[in-house]
């Protein structure tokens, strides 16, 4: 980052530096300058970068915030809440369904009155899944009891992150605060931004961290946090909260004023653009309001008295200020990037209308439009169109359509999606070449497969044309596994690379039936699908071929956040397969560490630098966790050992159809984030197996068998001979990191010896 220093001469304004950065970078900069105590987080686009930037800064020693990678957003909210209860300063960042997943925790935090700051980088809520920005997540926040500031620019993201903490901790408020800014538009677009040169300016502004509340902090002053109440008490608690929220509106003004003196930048409750004499106005939140200002200038040149209103704070809702701003406006269009389905207008439409209702003389017409959902771009001509609607209403004296969507199109019937290939099912996937039988003597399955050449005649389950990176290991792994399965499969893909690259609407790479659900819940979802199939079949309502096999596909990320769902499914024993493709990180969101990332490995949240050397703790042994649920079949596999994997596919199918739940894990290469050469994908996973980092084995009815032992084949290699292939592990081979490599080797050896013991003793 190159920076230009520029002294500001104005009295009282602290020295600032110009930089060229995005909203996420500025949220991280503010957090680092404040030097929060704790950040509990879980990656979700587009907010993930905040934790990544903080991790990078931490590796350079620029702050000492303790960054805690949670097992999901619900967990991250728990970490933050628990930390806030001590009076520590806490920050988080999330988006969309991440926010909804932690929603339960939001009112807990505000109702028990522990301040913290959360960056809500707004994005469309699923489903269908859409990673880009709208305000549907933000609207779920409206009733949580959190103060909500809205930041329109990267500059505002920085400034409001500093103001937010001061508001949250204010004695009249004591509430958590959300800083909401637009996903991608503000979070990722780089602009010129000023920030305080000296972090002590920021720290002085936010002040000392208050310690004199009833915290879980001083054990000489024991407290009970979170006692349950009945309505008689509950209403009083909530009245306090309501008062505190309105106080936050006043405190916002004080803090903004004080901040203006320090920074030279003003944040009034409402950002009013040419509203003094406006006849028509748009009411817009965040980035779209900025874009509309250019259009106001154009309209003003033509003599139209146009203006834009955009709040800087929406909780508490600035009703009084809006009433005043709209006093003489003839027609206002409230444009919203979310809907409140069935309410005849989204939330803020009603709040604006309700604000005006209290002014008996007000005659402003209010139009409402839902626009820009899922990150649909808002161009200048869209703002023009909005103004035209408002002008039309002003001229007619009524609105033709008070509420509508904007930007939706009917579509051309000629373009409807039609099947392009004959349905692929049943017999198509039966080769008759795979033979699976239970050996009554050994109580183990005996599998015969033909040479793999013969199985090339069996169609792939997934079609060409998917959007995975060159050299992606997912699809070779999945297809080899599917080769072992005869007949139909029904798949559920949890959110992750395999899902995203095969189902970009209106395109799909799935030949057989596939469904998606969010990745904390795929196993449970497929349990429901499977049981409903069986029940429908039992009642004679559908005919299901006997050999349909249900497979839940997940990445290692899905096995972190979805661990509870997977274990629950295993314990219930549904007859389905859970297949994990493990690429040692959350690759779909940009290579954040997962619990499966091995120690010392570099990811975007486990950076390598002076203060930190990659991931701090050992990789999760998911296969052993699942084996301990006592399901009938657990296995590991790799594309580097294709016969082994095809056989395991066949066994998995038999157990899933005849006994109960199966879990399997494939180690697959991610050349992009492992920073390895595309062409060596197979070799790298082969080396992982031969180094005993990823042993190939199965646990059949509780009995462990190593299916390929590199020691017996004289193929065992040192861990370093695997690590050398990958850019993410190069540093581990350097002398200064010897101790990490040694620690890693010791852990791998320990797990390998334990596995061998299990292999040798069926009782283990």
């Amino acid at each position, binding site marked *: 980052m*190159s920076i230009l220093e520029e002294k500001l001469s104005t009295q009282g304004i602290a020295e600032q530096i110009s*930089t*060229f950065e*995005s909203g996420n970078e500025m949220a991280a900069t503010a957090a680092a300058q404040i030097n929060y105590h704790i950040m509990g987080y879980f990656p979700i686009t587009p907010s993930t970068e905040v934790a990544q930037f903080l991790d990078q800064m931490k590796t350079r020693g620029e702050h000492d915030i303790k960054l805690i990678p949670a097992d999901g957003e619900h967990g991250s909210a728990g970490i933050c809440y628990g930390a806030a209860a001590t009076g520590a300063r806490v920050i988080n960042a999330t988006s969309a369904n991440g926010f909804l997943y932690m929603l339960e925790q939001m009112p807990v935090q505000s109702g028990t009155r522990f301040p913290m700051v959360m960056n809500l980088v707004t994005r469309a809520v699923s489903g269908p899944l859409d*990673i*880009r920005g709208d305000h549907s997540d933000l609207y779920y926040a409206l009733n949580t009891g959190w103060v909500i500031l809205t930041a329109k620019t990267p500059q505002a993201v920085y400034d409001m992150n500093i103001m937010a903490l001061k508001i949250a901790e204010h004695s009249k408020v004591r509430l958590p605060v959300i800083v909401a800014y*637009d996903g991608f538009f503000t979070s*990722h*677009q*780089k*602009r*010129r931004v000023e920030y305080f040169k000296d972090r002590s300016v920021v720290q002085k502004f936010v002040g000392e961290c208050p310690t004199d509340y009833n915290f879980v902090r001083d054990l000489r002053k024991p407290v009970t946090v979170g006692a349950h109440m009945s309505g008689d008490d509950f209403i009083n608690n909530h009245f306090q909260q309501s008062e505190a929220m309105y106080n936050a509106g006043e405190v916002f003004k004080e803090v903004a004023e004080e901040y203006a003196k320090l920074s030279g930048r003003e944040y009034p409750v409402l950002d009013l653009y040419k509203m003094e004499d406006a006849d028509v106005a748009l009411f817009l939140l965040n980035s779209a309001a*900025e*874009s509309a*200002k*250019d259009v106001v200038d154009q309209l003003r040149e033509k003599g139209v008295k146009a203006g834009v209103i955009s709040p800087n704070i929406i909780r508490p809702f600035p009703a009084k200020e809006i009433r005043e701003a709209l006093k003489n406006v003839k027609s206002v269009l409230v444009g919203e990037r979310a809907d409140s389905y069935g309410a005849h207008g989204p939330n803020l439409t009603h709040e604006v209308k309700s604000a005006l209702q209290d002014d008996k003389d007000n005659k402003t017409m209010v139009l409402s439009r839902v626009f820009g959902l899922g990150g649909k*771009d*808002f*161009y200048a001509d869209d703002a023009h169109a909005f103004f035209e609607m408002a002008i039309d209403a002003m001229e007619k004296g009524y609105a033709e359509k008070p509420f509508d969507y904007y930007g*939706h*199109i*009917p*579509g*051309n019937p000629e*373009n*409807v*999606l*039609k099947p*392009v*290939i*004959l*349905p*692929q099912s049943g017999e198509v996937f039966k080769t008759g070449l795979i033979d699976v039988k239970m050996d009554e003597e050994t109580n183990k399955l005996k599998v015969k497969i033909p040479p793999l*050449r013969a199985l*090339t005649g069996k169609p*792939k389950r997934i*079609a*060409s*044309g*998917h*959007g*995975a*990176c060159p*050299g992606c290991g*997912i*699809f*070779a792994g999945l297809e080899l596994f599917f080769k072992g399965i005869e007949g139909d499969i029904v798949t559920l893909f949890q959110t992750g690379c395999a899902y995203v690259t095969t189902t970009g*609407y*209106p*395109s799909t*790479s*799935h*030949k057989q039936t596939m469904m998606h659900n969010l990745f904390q819940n795929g196993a449970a979802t497929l349990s429901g699908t499977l049981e409903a199939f069986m029940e429908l079949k039992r009642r004679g309502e559908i005919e299901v071929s006997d050999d349909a096999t249900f497979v839940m596909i997940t990445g290692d990320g899905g096995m972190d956040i979805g661990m509870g769902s997977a274990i629950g499914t295993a314990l219930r024993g549904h007859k389905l397969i859970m297949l994990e493709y493990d690429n040692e990180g959350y690759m779909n969101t940009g290579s954040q560490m997962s619990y499966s990332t091995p120690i010392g490995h570099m990811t975007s949240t486990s950076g390598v630098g002076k203060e930190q050397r990659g991931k701090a703790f050992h990789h999760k042994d998911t296969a052993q966790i699942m084996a301990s649920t006592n399901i009938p079949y657990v296995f590991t596999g790799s*594309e580097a050992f294709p016969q082994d994997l095809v056989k395991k596919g066949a066994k998995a199918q038999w157990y899933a159809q005849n006994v109960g739940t199966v879990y399997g894990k494939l180690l697959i290469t991610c*050349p992009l984030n492992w920073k390895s050469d*595309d*062409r*060596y*994908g*197979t070799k790298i996973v082969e080396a992982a197996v031969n180094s005993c980092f990823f042993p190939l084995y199965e646990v059949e009815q509780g009995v462990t068998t190593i299916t390929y032992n590199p020691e017996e084949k004289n193929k065992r290699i040192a861990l370093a001979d695997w690590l050398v292939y990958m850019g993410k592990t190069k540093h581990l081979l350097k002398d200064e990191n010897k101790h990490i490599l040694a620690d890693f080797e010791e852990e791998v050896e320990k797990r390998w010896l334990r596995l061998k013991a299990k292999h040798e003793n069926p009782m283990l």
Partner: protein
Amino acid sequence: MSILPKKNELGFFEIRLESIGGLGANLAGKMLAEAGVLSLGLRGSNFSSYGSEKKGSPVKSFIRFCEPDVEIRDHSPIEQPHIVGVFHEALYRTVNVVSGLDAGGIVLVNTEREFDEVKKDLQLEYGTLAIVDALSIAVEEKTKVNTAMLGALYRICDFLDPESMRDVIRKTFTKKYPHLVEPNIRTFDRGYNEVKFKTYEVPVGAEGKAFTRSLPRLGYMTQEIGGVMVSQANSIFKDLSGSRQGFLPEFQQEKCIHCAACDNVCPDFCFVWEEGEDKRGRKQMFLKGIDYQYCKGCLKCVESCPTDALGDLRELLGYADENRVKQNFPYVAGGIQ
């Protein structure tokens, strides 16, 4: 006095970079914008097209510059740029890279071909074409394509000071990779010096390239409710050849032993098999060839091949089309787009 050569009605000078994920267009865009903003005191913004695009998928990077007193409030993608930088020629097949280009605009293309050939492929009628063989420069200097492209872009944006970029390069590499400083500066300078220009006269009253905001294929009357799809496997119509970065696997059937090792590791299901009879008259599967439409050039298959049947090939224009063996999908008659 303005240093910006041109401005649109909002006061912006706009640049659009067209690339595929992995070539560093994003970083180049950021560095270009940063140089204008931090070294020259211009205002600017920079962002990329976002989606779940992976490496090898088309991406765009956008740069807006304006005078220090102009506020940048526009967040929308650049539709009518003054300059287009094309990092990857294979993009022409699937992306209209010059969409909306200003009539007097400049297109910079990373190519080893001649002006007129490139002009024809771009369907460029007038304006200035700039060409630079950034790939060869990068290969020779063992650096990255984007640094050479940056050099050429600096030449085009002559209001920027190339010395400031040399400083950035020094700063970036000196500490961690001192041996990379010189090659990268050479790469940048070669891009700057080796870019060639040819102007095709702009007729009076000429208009820029038309741009169309693409509409979604389906609307609310034609989407199945809930976004459910019944067009299984319709991704087979996609052309992924643009993901390749210069290499593809060459298949020599006479050396093939039909072991399926390549098929087992191919992420994109490019290998085409056919049933036939072996010498003893038994039914067997035979590898017929590669469907290059889907091949992203990872070359895993070459590594897996136990014979010399598969090898690396520097891709020449037309090779893939001539040697493609089409996958034999069971198309539904009438269902094809």
